[in-house]
């Protein structure tokens, strides 16, 4: 039985990020919950509470809370980041889930953000700047047997995965003969017939 997708899909990346905790301001009371993945405390307006993002979004959609955006999701902070990003060749420090959290929050609770359209604009700029850097910068590191890509968020990693993986695979084919015995035993090195293609990359 084959999986439909070998690598994590964007929906799955969102799913993963939805377990992150975020601060909310409840608007209605809610009793404590014994859930499978977490035990929540009672929500008593207007006391702030930390809940998983999926729950925060759910409550927000039902108008039972407002979400407190993380510090970095503000126009000032993002403007500074955009400047930093365009001035330097390195990647600025971003929270691990920045792209996904930004997307989810812009999608579901833009009213809780100050100047959401400006925020969306800056997020897009950041994304484009960083993608351009990824493409340019990584080609410099292509001659090594590993690549360090610190400061990239999870979604960004998933986006570049297909082509970075291929390049590294290409490297390995060149240095394959001097490589490990496992590489030597790989069928692709031995079988030159066309039917090898049927053992595809997916599961």
């Amino acid at each position, binding site marked *: *039985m084959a999986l439909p997708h070998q690598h994590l899909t964007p929906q799955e990346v969102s*799913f993963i990020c939805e377990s992150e905790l975020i601060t909310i301001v409840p608007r209605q009371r809610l009793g404590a*919950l014994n859930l*499978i993945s977490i035990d929540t405390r009672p929500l008593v307006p207007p006391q702030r509470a930390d809940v998983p993002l999926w*729950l925060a979004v759910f409550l927000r959609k039902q108008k039972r809370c407002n979400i407190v955006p993380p510090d970095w999701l503000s126009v000032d902070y993002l403007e500074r980041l955009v400047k930093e990003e365009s001035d330097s060749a390195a990647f600025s420090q971003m929270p691990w889930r920045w792209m996904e959290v930004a997307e989810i929050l812009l999608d579901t609770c833009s009213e809780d953000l100050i100047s959401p359209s400006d925020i969306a604009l800056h997020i897009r700029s950041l994304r484009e700047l960083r993608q351009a850097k990824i493409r340019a910068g990584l080609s410099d590191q292509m001659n090594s047997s590993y*690549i360090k890509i610190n400061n990239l968020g999870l979604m960004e990693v998933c986006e570049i995965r297909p082509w970075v993986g291929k390049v590294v695979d290409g490297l390995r084919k060149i240095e394959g003969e001097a490589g*490990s015995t496992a590489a030597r035993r790989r069928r692709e090195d031995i079988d030159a017939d066309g039917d090898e293609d049927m053992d595809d990359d997916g599961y």
Partner: protein
Amino acid sequence: MEDIDDILREFDSQNAPSNAKDYDDLLKWWINERAAPEILQCQEDLVERIMTRVRRQIEQIEDQTGNLDPRANFQLIIVQTELERVKFLIRSYLRTRISKIDKHALHILSTPSIRHLLSPSEQTYLRTHQALLNELYLSSFLKNFPDNLKRLDDSAGGLSMVEEPDLEGAVFLRVVRDVNVAIAWENGETLDMRAGDVYVIRYSAVQEAVKRGDVELI
């Protein structure tokens, strides 16, 4: 003077509820399993603990639903919403493993150390599936072959019929704990990986680090 909430929070973090950790752990192992080219150790105990809570939640839901307006029982909706998330996670974890078991069936069957990474029911699935496939091949054409050509795990002629996982492919990972890995077999070159770093590297170099939990695949 300490706020009572702060004191309570201190107690909470000391007796950190294992259910939150369990879910996080399964999330990590699911991601590992998706990203790793080979099958990893089945997290049976972890899955069983979470399944116990799943069953308890299902019972709770069944007990409480009746002629109720969903709005009046908002909490139940949240319980059900979370339940679907956990079901999805377990489901995807198990099926990711099944797809790898199918793909590398002969290799797993013939390598006891790998076979032991499977749960008992996965091993049963593997054996039964292979037996069914063998029967299919036999009845479809193999029975008409000369005797010495009836084997399904030939490796003569430089051609292996046993499909092995490709351990040399590139994986993406994030370092959980500082770890030192060997990256070049010939000259003993090693790499110091620091916690928080993100790398693209061939899987075989970090195989053991993944299993130990020193790095997590992404």
